[in-house]
């Protein structure tokens, strides 16, 4: 599985998003399950899935699918 596929998979699983409803524009608090609890679940999933530990600032800044990709690049994840 490529990194981008892994990333998307984690999003779908952690936020219980239907593949049909998924798009790359999704943002925090604009998706039903991406509330504060969903966010921590997502972060936890990403940390486990990519074997990284995110900084608090990055967790706070992680406000959309696309932004997340930018953030993960800081952790040497290539997409």
């Amino acid at each position, binding site marked *: 599985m490529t990194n981008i596929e892994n990333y998307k998979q984690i999003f779908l699983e952690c936020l219980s998003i239907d593949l049909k409803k998924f798009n790359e524009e999704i943002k925090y608090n604009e998706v039903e399950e991406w*509330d*504060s*609890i969903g966010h*921590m*679940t997502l*972060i*936890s999933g990403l940390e*486990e899935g990519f074997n990284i530990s995110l900084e608090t600032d990055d967790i706070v800044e992680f406000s959309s699918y696309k932004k997340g990709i930018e953030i993960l690049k800081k952790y040497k994840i290539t997409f």
Partner: protein
Amino acid sequence: MIINDRNIKIWSTIGSRATLGMAALELAKEIENLMVLTCDVSTSAGLDRYKKTYPDKYLDVGIAEQNLIGVAAGLASENFNVITTTFAPFQTMRCCEQIKVNLGYMNQKVCLVGIASGLALGTLGFTHCCIEDIGVLRSIPGLTIISPADSLETVKALEAAVKHNGPTYVRLTGTSNNPIVYTKDYDFKIGQSIKLRDGNDVSIFCTGTMVHASLEAAKILKKEKISCKVINIHTIKPIDKKAIESSCDSNLIVSIEEHNIIGGLGSAVAEHLSKLNKKPKQLFLGIDDIYGKGGEYNFLLEKHGLTPKKIVDEILLNYKKL
């Protein structure tokens, strides 16, 4: 609830408060007559998703804790299974008499959940910390008091409390990234303590966040050639008297709590210990009956001697004096 590695990690990351919110979602699926009541703290208790999903099983009474208890008891008297929650000091002390009359005296079955107890909200000052709740509530007959060690135990405690046939108080401590004590599912019974580590020299009775701290301290003490038994007293009332009795062959008993050393776990242990003929000395670790200056959680734990290293120092000091 599904207890697996993934969930245990998530619950630890989100902390015990948000775990309450997740547990409530699951409980609402199984319990038709569940009602969760709050005092304008839905977001603080991780209940936003619950509120949206089960609006009929949720009620906010506003910042009115005395009314909260009466309303909860009224609902309970009509066979609703009620959980109430707000910040620990307000959940327990603002409405203490209502708890006495409605839950203690009238025995109405309500599960009170005190969030952010102990020093978690230290930056907000001691009005929002709670180092008195166990002490205050222990003297109300009929009220069971549970203090879970980690987020998984929070789930277990809530599941047990809603099934319990009397009123309960569940005391949630710690913040997000709540250290994990239990890495897999286990048997949780109200009133039955859990020995997490065996040892001959020192018996440590601990509760809430201090369970993890005690386990870490025990590892360090082993290197100092002191073997520690660590007992998780998740149920402070009724306390597991047998666990206390079977620790009397230790050289030292230590009680550790994120609570005043007056009135809490230490006092509960001492009350039973003092009735026994042969018993070791007890070292009380906790907040030494003081409202100090506020600060961040970890800073306050350090200041009040509640980190593994500080616990080790105190135990070593006292052990050497024996």
